[in-house]
């Protein structure tokens, strides 16, 4: 009799402790945490007047340059970067069309990815504003992450010859939109 009573008392106590004191709570939910910050950063910019393409008495239609970048080098970016969007805002009032080519190369100078940003000529020298967007996801993004060099090539397309006094300007602004998924 005594034993049974103790048992009931014990049972009641346990019930009280387990049910009475807490409501259901699940700490494993923390495993579901996903951080999805989106970072926007300025990238390249330049502006040039038409006469800048007239060097030493002749037209210079191609300009090239490159940067070595370590942007994608860290394991954090490698693991968590899920989408990259490049946005270019171009304003052109020169009566020549332009093509900006971006080549992404690995350390052995092997081409991984590339894209072009095209700009129309402005025959009447009015400002033509255009926006170009380039999105990298999936396999293309994985290749982009391997790149260590970005080469820029600006090509002035054939058209009406320019000289010291040709009016107009071209300006390019750009940003990168980096979407992360940290889980």
């Amino acid at each position, binding site marked *: 009799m005594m034993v049974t009573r103790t048992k009931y008392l014990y049972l009641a106590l346990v019930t009280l402790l387990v049910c*009475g*004191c*807490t*409501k*259901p*709570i*699940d*700490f494993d*939910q*923390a495993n*579901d*945490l*996903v*951080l*999805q*910050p*989106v*970072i*926007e*950063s*300025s*990238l*390249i*910019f*330049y*502006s*040039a007047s038409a006469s*800048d*393409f007239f*060097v030493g008495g002749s037209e*210079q239609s191609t*300009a090239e*340059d*490159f*940067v*070595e*970048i*370590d942007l994608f080098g860290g394991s*954090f970016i490698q693991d968590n970067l899920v989408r990259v969007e490049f*946005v270019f*805002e171009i304003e052109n009032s020169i009566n020549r069309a332009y093509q900006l080519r971006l080549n992404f190369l690995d350390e052995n100078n092997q081409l991984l990815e590339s894209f072009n940003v095209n700009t129309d000529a402005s025959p009447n020298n009015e400002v033509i504003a255009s926006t170009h967007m380039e999105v990298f996801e999936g396999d293309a993004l994985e290749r982009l992450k391997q790149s260590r060099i970005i080469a*820029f090539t*600006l090509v002035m397309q054939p058209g009406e010859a320019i000289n010291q006094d040709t009016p107009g300007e071209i300006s390019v*602004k*750009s*940003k990168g*939109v980096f979407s*992360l998924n*940290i*889980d």
Partner: protein
Amino acid sequence: MRSQQLFILMVFLASFSFGQNKQVLYGFSEVPQSLLLNPGMQIDNKGYFGISLLSHVHVNGSSSGISLYDLFAEDGRDFNLKLRNTVNTLRPTDFLTATQQLEIISGGFALGPSYDKNEYLSFGLYQEFDAISYFPKDYAILALEGNQRNIGRPFLLEHLNFSANVVSVLHIGYNKRVNSKFTYGVRGKIYSNVADISSNANSGRFITLQGDNNIYKHFFDLNLEVKTSGIDGFLDDNTDSQEAIKDLRRRLLFGGSLGVGIDLGFTYHITDQWFVDASILDVGFITHSKDIKRYQVKGDLEFEGIDPIFPENNDNLTADEYWSQIEEDFEEIFTLDSTTSRYTTSRPVKFNSSLNYAFGKKKLKDCDCSAEDDGYLNRIGAQLYAIKRPKGLQAALTAYYYRRIFSGFSAKATYTVDTYSFSNIGLGVSANIFGLNLYLMADNLLAYRNIYDAQHVSLQLGLNYIFKNEN
């Protein structure tokens, strides 16, 4: 995974209220440890000693803003959504504190002529852990959203504000009953730092604005510092655990960075039944001079992008040279510098005060008169508590009822209001059996129904041997 856990920890750090308030113990004169809360308390024992390691254990975790339950309830709602709501609800002044105290030795005895022992000396050694962290809101927003949705919004680096320390405290107190109305006391303390980490003086910001030459310009103005004392030595891989324990023991026994402090207090009887008391505790500092490591990130930088300088018309730099320069600037500003110069931390100063009214003398059964020497059985009063924290004062107001239930057994019930809780009910009992004094105190009793929903829990218990006052 690690960054994820860190983030959750960060949100937690935000979520906890009053670490140091011991409203039940304050003024509970049967318990000798109440003398630590007011060195100028009226004492009515001849002496005592605390039973080693049991005389005062105090643990406390508390939260402001949200509770654990809000975030982790099994309510079928998406965890990420709950977390975002939590982050948005919390303010950068919300904080978490945790306190723990362990008395190692304590004792006291009355002094003075045998017919009037009106002086009292008390002493002891205790270990204390105290931590506070404010919610680093802007850091959390940046981690959750990035800067895309926050163009033009400054991310304030001052939101990172925390400190945690372990000290051992050796103290000796003097108490004097000047007359039947007035008693005062003073306690001197020597602090020995075991470990200290703090970051309380951060400033600067990160902001993205519309640019002039490019789409955006980004400003980094960083001034961050984390100070540590007594920690770097343990991080050293070459330290084995044996040595570490030895070192820890040495620091607990005043081999660490040292500091001094003082407590002051008084009790004043306005009438036979009304009295006021007040105390100020831990007015002191520690000068950290041993095993210091301070980490800094300092500098400012404006970034608008790379100008690949197509027709190479300015500066004669190639795009790569230009970029290398920017990379260097970034590296310079984000590189963690460290120094070992000494620094000083102040202890969290605490203030206690109360207004009390005693009433109801014990009636003797065989006559209709009241017992002469037993004093009043009941007491009610109001207590005010405040503590100085890095971002300002935190205060709490308590109303209480005290009752001596029978000889050697008394109880106190409290109701406390602070910034975050209007439902904090506490209860404490003290029992004297054959000279042994046993006490147990807890607050926020209502919250024990669902402990996870509690924003504050505190528990104190202890055991003393008391030499009773014969007269």
